[in-house]
C-alpha cells in the first residue's frame, strides 16, 4: 500500500458547459515530497484541487490515492482519508477563538461530534494538543483571541495549524502566501518546510521564490493541461514555460 506514489490522476478532466477547465491531467505526486502546481491565472489549479477534494465531480478521468480509486467518494470521506485542503482565500472560523478553530480539527476523531446532550467542557481534553499546534505556528499567545481580529498572514498560519490537527498525509495548499507581505511569506515558507516532515504537500503557489525554494517537483498547468513538469532548474528553462510566464515570471 505504501507505494512511492501517494496520489495519481489519470486523464482528469473538468468541463464547465463546454469550457475545459482541467484537460486530461495525468499527475503523479511522490510520497514525502513538496510538489508545486503553478500556472497563469485561470489555468485550472483551483478547479483541479476542487476535483481532488470532491468539491466538484470530474467530467472524466480517475483519482487514485495510495493506489485506490477514490474518484466517486464524498468530500468528507476523502478528507477522512487524510487528504486535507486549504483554500485560496483564508478559511478560518472567524467568530471562534484560535483555540476553538484548532479544536474543530481535533474534535472529529474524538467521536462526540453529534453529542448534543454533553457539555462542551469535554472538549477541554483537547486543549493541550490544540495549544501545542498553535505554538508550532507561533500563535500560542493568541489562543483566546477571536480569529477575526487576527492579521491576514496569521490567519493563514492558523489554517495550517487546523489542517495539521487532522494529521493529514497529504496537504493541499491553495496559494498559502497569496496577499502576504515579505515577512509573512518567509514565515509561511519556513512553516511549510517544517510541516512537510513525514507528509506530502501539493501546493498551488504564484510566488516563485517560495516555489523554487522548497518544492521538489513542479508541474506547470496552462489552460487546463500540463505544460511541463520537473525540478525547478529544469522547468524554469523550458521555453514553453518561459513563454507562458512572459511578464508574470520573476
Amino acid at each position, binding site marked *: 500500500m505504501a507505494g512511492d506514489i501517494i496520489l495519481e490522476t489519470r486523464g482528469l478532466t473538468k468541463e464547465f458547459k463546454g469550457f475545459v477547465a482541467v484537460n486530461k491531467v495525468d499527475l503523479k505526486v511522490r510520497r514525502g515530497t513538496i510538489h508545486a502546481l503553478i500556472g497563469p491565472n485561470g489555468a485550472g489549479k483551483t478547479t483541479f484541487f476542487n476535483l481532488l477534494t470532491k468539491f466538484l465531480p470530474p467530467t472524466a478521468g480517475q483519482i487514485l490515492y495510495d493506489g485506490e480509486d477514490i474518484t466517486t467518494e464524498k468530500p468528507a470521506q476523502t478528507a477522512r482519508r487524510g487528504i486535507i485542503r486549504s483554500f485560496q482565500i483564508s478559511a478560518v472560523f472567524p467568530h*471562534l477563538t484560535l483555540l476553538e478553530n484548532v479544536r474543530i480539527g481535533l474534535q472529529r476523531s474524538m467521536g*462526540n461530534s453529534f453529542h448534543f446532550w454533553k457539555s462542551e467542557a469535554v472538549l477541554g481534553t483537547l486543549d493541550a494538543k490544540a495549544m501545542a499546534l498553535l505554538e508550532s505556528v507561533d500563535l500560542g499567545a493568541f489562543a483566546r483571541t477571536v480569529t477575526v481580529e487576527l492579521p491576514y498572514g496569521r490567519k493563514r498560519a492558523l489554517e495550517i495549524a487546523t489542517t495539521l490537527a487532522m494529521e493529514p498525509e497529504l496537504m493541499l495548499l491553495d496559494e498559502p502566501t497569496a496577499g502576504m507581505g515579505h515577512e509573512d511569506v518567509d514565515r509561511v515558507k519556513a512553516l511549510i518546510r517544517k510541516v512537510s516532515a513525514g507528509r506530502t504537500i501539493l501546493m498551488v503557489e504564484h510566488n516563485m521564490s517560495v516555489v523554487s525554494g522548497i518544492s521538489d517537483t513542479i508541474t506547470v498547468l496552462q489552460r487546463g493541461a500540463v505544460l511541463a513538469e520537473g525540478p525547478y532548474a529544469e522547468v524554469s528553462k523550458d521555453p514553453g514555460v518561459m513563454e507562458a510566464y512572459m511578464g508574470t515570471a520573476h
Partner: protein
Amino acid sequence: MDNRTRVLYVALLVAGLAAPAVVYPIFLMKALCFALFASAFNLLVGFTGLLSFGHAMFLGTAGYICGHAVKVMGFPTEAGILAGVAVSALLGYLVGSLAIRRQGIYFAMITLAFSQMLYFIYLQAPFTGGEDGLQSIPRGKFLGLVNLEDDIAMYYFTFAIVLFGFWTIYRTVHSPFGQVLKAIRENEARALSLGYDVDKYKLLAFVLSAALSGLAGATKALVFKFETLTDVHWHMSGEVVLMTLLGGMGTILGPTVGAFIVVTLQNYLSALEGWVNVITGVIFIICVLAFRRGVVGEIAAFLKKA
C-alpha cells in the same frame, strides 16, 4: 457562563415563578410557548445558519397530534405531548432530509412548500376539524394527580416544560455538537474539508429544532384547549422569524424577548384588529434598520463595550 449571566438567569427564573401572581396566566403561557417556539427556530437560523420559512408546520402538527391524542384517543397529558413531539420530529426528519441539500433561499422555499402542503392537508383532513379546528381539548391531570384545568397549575406545568426546552437548547448550543454547528455556520466548505459530513449535522439540528417547536405547539394546544389552522398558516412561520430577529438572532435570550414583545403587542393592540399586523410590521422594519442585532444582541454588544 460568567457570573453576570448566572445572576440574570436566576433572576429570570424567580420572575417566572412569581409572574402568575401579577400577570394573567393564559397570557404568560402563550408568551412562554412562543418563546420556546422562537428559541427552537433560532437553534436553526441563529446557530446553524439555516433559514426555515415553514416552521409553523412543526408547531401546528404537534398541536393537532397532541390534541387528538388526549381528546379522542384518551392519552394522558404527558403521553399526548410526547406523541406531538415525536410526530413533529419525524416530520422534521422527512422535510429536513429533502431541504438541507439546498442552500439559502432554496432551503427556505422548500420548507415553505412543505408547510403549505401540510396546511391544505390539515384543512381537508377530518381529524383536524378543518376550518373550525380541534375544540375542547382536555388538559388532563399531571401524573394523574394535579388537575391542569386550573390555570395556575397549568402555568407551572407549562413553565417547567418551557424551561426543559430552554435547557435542551442551551445544552445543544454549548455541546461538542454545537461547536461543530458553529463551525458549519461560520465556514461550511472548511468544515467539509475537515471531514465533517455537514448535511448530517444540519439534519440533526433540523430535527432537534422541529421537535422543540413541536413541544411548544403541543403545550400551546393544551393551554388554549384548542388547535386551529392559525398555527400551521404561513403567517405563523413569518411571525417566528419576526420574533427571532426582533429579539436577536443567534443569542440565547433574544427569541424569548422577541416573543414577549410580539405577544404583548398583539395583546394590547388586539382592539385595532388588522392594524396589529401593520404596526408589528412597522416595528419590525424599524428594528431591522436600527438594531440589526436585535434587542438582546444590541444590549450584549453594548455591555461588551462598556
